[in-house]
């Protein structure tokens, strides 16, 4: 894997580790984590911080006889005692990231997606990731040379490059790079290179296009 140059902000990783992100943004972050050791390690650090916080929680008494009820529920399933860890992945050697978080949301390969054209050179495919909290997850495909209208974001947007590349005022984004934008950043990404740029985008609120063209395009882009 090439070097990833753009990562989520630490605060975003901390929100992820705390279970605070909506489903759409969690998918984008966890997909990045499968590609980025650096951020995976940060998330485990934040989980350790969560563990320290858990110990400060005011205990709530369990119902009477809870431990006995627990053993009943556990049944006679004694844990398998294994003198050596050999052959096992330690259960506490983890991260939140599944093997293929994005894959779980795609019923077909990226190459077989039925794209819906939303503007010349731009098409999208909305994924069902509205399990909890607000948030929309979509794949956007931008043809090389096409520029999206200038826009800002009412809240946060996370964009992970899956394929191809784009550039905007912040820099160049290539596969694995994650753009973690909030409302004070406005950008107009332009796809470049030989192939379509495919991005996985999570938005927690609708995008706000800034210029007139954007205003015209917006309703029909459906962003």
């Amino acid at each position, binding site marked *: 894997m090439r070097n990833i140059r753009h*990562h989520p902000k630490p605060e975003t990783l901390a929100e992820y580790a705390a279970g605070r992100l909506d489903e759409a943004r969690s998918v984008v972050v966890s997909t990045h984590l499968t590609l980025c050791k650096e951020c995976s390690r940060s998330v485990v650090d934040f989980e350790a911080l*969560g563990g320290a916080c858990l110990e400060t929680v005011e205990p709530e008494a369990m119902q009477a006889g809870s431990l006995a009820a627990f053993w009943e529920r556990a049944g006679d*399933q004694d844990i398998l005692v294994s003198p050596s860890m050999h052959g096992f992945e*330690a259960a506490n050697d983890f991260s939140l990231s599944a093997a293929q978080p994005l894959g779980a949301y795609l019923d077909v390969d990226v190459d077989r997606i039925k794209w819906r054209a939303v503007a010349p050179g731009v098409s999208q495919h909305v994924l069902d990731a509205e399990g909890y909290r607000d948030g929309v997850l979509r794949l956007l495909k931008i043809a090389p040379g096409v520029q999206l209208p200038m826009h800002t974001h009412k809240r946060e947007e996370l964009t992970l490059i899956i394929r191809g590349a784009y550039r905007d005022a912040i820099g160049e984004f290539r596969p694995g790079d994650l753009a973690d934008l909030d409302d004070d950043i406005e950008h107009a990404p332009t796809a470049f290179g030989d192939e379509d740029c495919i991005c996985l985008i999570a938005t927690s609120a609708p995008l706000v296009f800034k210029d007139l063209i954007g205003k015209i395009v917006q309703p029909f882009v459906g962003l």
Partner: protein
Amino acid sequence: MIRGRAVIGAEILIVTSARPNKNVSSGSSEAMSDLLGRVATSGDRAAFGELYDYFAPRVKGYLMRGGSPADLADDLAQETMLKVWRKARLYDPAKAGAATWIFTIARNLRIDAARRAAKPTLDPDDPSLSPEGEQPADERMERADRDKKIKAAFEALPEAQHEVVRLHFIEDAAHSEIAERLGLPLGTVKSRLRLAFTKIRKELGDLDA
């Protein structure tokens, strides 16, 4: 860890007062990890019982702070501990501490509960957000040590930062609601969080002091 635009090292320290009460010593969490290690190697039910008595009420408290009614929180706390028991043989004391591991299990159950509430027909085995997957960590030996340092750095935070970090990880309220509750502007809550994270990463040697 940081690249790009996030400039958090440049923040100015605002609070330096010491925190008055620390009622959890680092000793107790090491004791808990040792207990779990005993469960892992010998299936020791008495050791697990001690672990249960310590963590189940805290997990229940955590779930209630996340909005679960007491009955559900009780049930999910038990389920958390059940996962701990069933997977205990895979616990490696050289890796994440007991509290960290239990936190992630409880957090995932909390997320699952929220998803089920939003989408009642959801497949509980849906692999999206809450896998307890394996991590190809390259710093395996280092992990337990990092956990201890993180806990110590957390306990040494100034009270104002300690509190927002706690609320960030425990409460299900949005940062704006937390700000309201503390009578602070949202920006202050966010900057305290960033300061705390920066300080902890300095303690870990990830940033220049």
